[in-house]
């Protein structure tokens, strides 16, 4: 029998993988994917709790998160594209013009 605890454990694992990816990867695209992974880990926990309580609140919030994530992807990819055009690189460490 798969209990909510299993879903939560999976969500935590996914979230940690995403978080570590954000922290250690330099490729902006991979960082971006890791952010998505973290968002979806959270979505998974929302759905699991909604199912457990038998209400729709968590499912509705999961939809909201998806909408926000979609919007974020649009803006974020646009920024990435223009950075790549300007600097021929998608490494987050190269985007440091504001320092100093």
């Amino acid at each position, binding site marked *: 029998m798969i209990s909510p605890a299993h879903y939560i454990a999976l969500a935590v694992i996914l979230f940690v993988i995403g*978080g570590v990816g*954000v*922290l*250690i990867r*330099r490729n902006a695209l991979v*960082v971006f994917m890791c952010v998505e992974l973290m968002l979806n880990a959270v979505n998974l926990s929302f759905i699991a709790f909604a199912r457990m309580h038998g209400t729709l609140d968590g499912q509705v919030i999961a939809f909201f998160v998806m909408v926000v994530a979609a919007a974020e992807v649009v803006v974020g990819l646009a920024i990435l594209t223009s950075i790549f055009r300007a600097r021929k690189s998608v490494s*987050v*460490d190269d*985007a*440091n013009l*504001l*320092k*100093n």
Partner: protein
Amino acid sequence: MTLTSAEVTLPAVGAVHAAWLLLAFPSFGAAVLLLGGKRTNAWGHLLGVTMSLASFVYGVALFAQMLGERGAGRSRDDHVYTWVPAIGRFHVPIGLQIDQLSICFVLLITGVGSLILIYAVGYMAADPDRRRFFGYLNLFIAAMLLLVTADNYVGLYIGWEGVGLASYLLIGFWYYNPAPPVAAKKAFVANRVGDAGLTLAIFLMFAQFGSVSFAGVFSQVHNASPGVVTALGLLLLLGACGKSAQLPLQSWLLDAMEGPTPVSALIHAATMVTAGVYLIVRSAPIFNLSSDARLVVTIVGAATALFGALIGCAKDDIKKALAGSTMSQIGYMMLAAGLGPVGYALAIAHLLAHGFFKAGLFLGAGAVKHEMNDEVDMRRFGGLATVMKITFVTFTFGYLAIIGIPPFSGFFTKDPIIEAAFAKGGTSGALLGTAAVIGAGITAFYMTRVMFMTFAGRKRWDDGAHPHEAPPVMTSPMVILAVGSLCAGGFLMFSNRLIDFLAPVTGTPPLSHGFLAPISDISLAVVVAGAAVAWAMYGRREVPVTAPRGSFATVAARKDLYGDAFNESVLMRPGQWLTRLSVFFDNRGVDGLVNSVAASMGGTSGRLRRSQTGFVRSYALFMLAGAVIVVFALLLVRL
């Protein structure tokens, strides 16, 4: 002590309505000359003289109207405008008080002042800055007129400061030479010390009486405690000491000789130094109530009379010898003023007579200096009597007047002061009287010395000098002043004329003064003895061109009796140490505190800045850590 009737001052009538014209004439002259610039160069000096004469004529008109009045009608007050409308208790209307005392000063300032201005037309003829000079002179006269006609202490104070400013500008007139600006600064600083006294006196008056007008203060002064009255008297005396070059603020007067000679004449005869005497006499109701303050005034006066006379003995600079004599003569006036109601009128009488003969002496000295290529060392004069006859005669008149030979004016005005000092009675009276007699003897000595060294004996001047008589524009004022030196004293003192005239302001003297024959004879004998000694030393013997080393006393007197050394060691050096200490404390203490706070902030932020790496990942790590901490904190609070 009864109050004088000076408080009874009636509203203005007739010419007094426009008493402000007195000040307006010279102020207008000063404004035109100083603001007009080079455009007024051609006729500036004429405007200056005209404005001063106009003021004099108006003063005579006021005087004539006053003589036509009787009793209280002689003291009139012309309200000009309200300077400070009532703010709480503070209310300063500016008014001009034309009474017996102020009219004496008005006539002296404008009369003698005009003569000096006429003389200056000739004296400064070759100076490219003559127009500026006359602008300052008019400013001087205007300020002095405000000083003596204001009906309250604040108005008096404005004039007082104006006089200080004008004297500063005039002493430093030849600012391109090194000495005059220094002398001007010294005069200004010494005057500021005195001004502080006057300022505090005015503050104290307002605090005690809620008024700064003469009428307001004098009507309430008898309600004040004796300590307050004495403090007022001493503060006013400090102010008077600054302006009148009395001990201990005397040192500026000798240096002030750096100014052009007409300025010296104006400062010493008509304006400036007389202001202190005026202040004391005007504040008679205050001094009447405090015998302690009066005693200090007499001591200061007697000490300065001797001090100035001693300095005059050793000076080879003719102007500085005369400056010493001014200090000494003002000392006599202060001595008289300190004697109370007996002496106020005597002080004013001597002041008026002194105005004539001292102006005459200075103008004579200026004429000599002018003809001797600006030489002032008397050891390089000699034998001038034959080449400058008019100057010689007028100078002689002034000389006989200052040493007090009858019938010249000094005799009639100085002897009553000596008598009044003796009449004070007690030990102090005897001491003051003796000091005054000795001072008269020394005066005779140094003035005779000046006469012999300048006009008698062999010619000692350089080959380059070709002295001859000064032009008429310079000699005619000298002649008029010489006539004044001859007649003024006798005219003023004849049957107590001036004393009775001033009585409503200065109070009626308790006993009338005839000539006390023995004292008069003694002082005359001392004067003759002093003159005889000077003749023996400088008339009979040849005067060496270079000064001999001289005795200890001579050396001391040449150095102004160490007045400057005293100021330097007692005031200047400790002042410098105090400054250095303050600077040290400021740099290390106050600045150190502020700077260390700033430095520690800077250091901390420098260290904090290193955490700003510019790597997005590290910021993300900080965010994560922060989020984790927040979550744990929430959990902790929940549990």
